[in-house]
């Protein structure tokens, strides 16, 4: 229990903050960046547990990241890039690159192309999810924040 908490909550949270620092994100946004990254990863993990493929899971994970980023952007009045870039890091197919190269070098070409294609699919899933949410008109998110304030 504790192990999976560390694994799936602490790790993406701290990791995301690490990258937020590398991009020189102002200190006051660290917490939000961490939360975005964690939420995205938890969604990804849940989807994988339900038997979804890596691409589908990345799609849903990214959806959560972008939605959350857009809400935070309206609330904190700052560019969306801040949350989006750091939040998306846990989902970027870094492992895919490594395995593709590894199998290429060890001459297991079938495995290499499988891994390569999978990374490309994951990348496309991320693209699709971002485009999808970015296209939602701005007013929708402003409305949401106003409603919360009234409550």
């Amino acid at each position, binding site marked *: 229990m504790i192990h999976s908490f560390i694994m799936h909550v602490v790790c993406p949270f701290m990791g995301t903050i690490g990258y937020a620092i590398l991009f*020189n994100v102002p200190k006051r*946004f660290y917490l939000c960046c961490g939360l975005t990254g964690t939420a995205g990863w938890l969604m990804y993990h849940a989807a994988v547990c339900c038997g979804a493929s890596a691409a589908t899971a990345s799609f849903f994970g990214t959806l959560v990241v972008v939605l959350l980023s857009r809400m935070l952007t309206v609330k904190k009045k700052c560019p969306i890039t801040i949350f989006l870039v750091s939040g998306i890091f846990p989902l970027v197919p870094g492992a895919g690159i490594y395995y593709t190269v590894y199998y290429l070098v060890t001459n297991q070409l079938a495995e290499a192309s499988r891994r390569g294609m999978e990374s490309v699919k994951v990348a496309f899933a991320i693209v699709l999810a971002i485009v999808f949410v970015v296209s939602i008109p701005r007013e929708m998110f402003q409305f949401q924040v106003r409603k919360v304030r009234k409550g």
Partner: protein
Amino acid sequence: MKIQQIRRDKDEYMDMLLMADPQRDMIESYLDQGEMFALVNGGAVCAVCVVKMLKNRKCELKNIVTRESDRGKGYAKYMIRCICEYYGNICDTMYVGIANSKGMMGFFEQCGFINSHVVVNYFADHYREPIYEDGVRLTDKIYLKKQLGSEIDVKKVVDLALEAGRILLKNGAEIFRVDETITRICHRFHVEYVDTFILSHAIFVSAENGMEETYTKVKQVPLSSSHLGIVAEVNELSREIAEGLVGIEEASRRLEEIDRMPSKKGYFQVLAAGMGSGFFGYLLGASALESMVAFCIGCFLYIWVLKAKKHNISKMIVNIVGGVIITTLAILALHIPILGNVKMDGMIIGSIMPLVPGLAFVNAIRDIADSDFLSGTVRMIDAILVFVYIAVGVGFTLSVYNNLGGGLML
């Protein structure tokens, strides 16, 4: 909060205008010729004013009034500043005629007006009913004036807007944000005709003032490292400019300050890279020990990246060598006996992450989603190439290691 010019149905605001000028036919005498402006905040009109053009590049502020419930919030002052900037392009002097009351004098003096001349017995002659204020009958009309000079000119505004755009683009903002910021700043300072063309590494702005003079400027913005903190600051500044809280001089001073904002300290970045590597390594399936190694590799990697950035080494070399460093260190870790039975995968995957071009990738997607295909493609190629460079670095080292061991090492 914004100022709108009212062109039709000016009579609708008569009840407000009557608060400042009690005689209806006097208002009607200047309402038709005068230009009327309204300050709109949150959909409601909070203040209105009427300005009449006189001869010889002069104009007169005939009436300015704030709705009773909104007084004391600085709306009138803001409005005067805006119309002064607006008329600065076409007039030299703005007059305002007021009754002899201390409050009014004080207010207009704060706005930069000075005494001009007095028309004796104006109110007694022109108004049917005597006007009293604080029990004193008002008779003389005092004229104040303000030199508008050129409070702003197109050149200055475009320079400011372009500088803001350059800083944004350099530090990794999306194309539409740069475009929006430039247009927003120009419109705020009444440069209405402005055209921008923005690429991933250049900005073209062309602006026109009311007198058919066009001013064009091109700025090249070389690709460099990104700093999202600066993007956030400029964004905030542009928001303040659009709300009218910041004048043009202050804005350029603050832009300079923002541009000089330093990155995080070197060792802090190195530790952050290590932290990212370690935690993501663990997340992507490394053991605790392997994550510790990934932390160290990430730190070493980032020392190289920072050194390379300092000497402007090309991106290609930075990433290929980065890949080589990661893999070499991971292989070394395999052969350190204290570490025992570690696997290479987790360590390498974790420590690759600081090199991954997340920002370029995300920006490319967003530019393409906004139909900025040209910049989107350039940034996407940038991102993909970095992925390839990393792969080349890692692959090269792995294959050398494999061949040294006669194909049995991996």
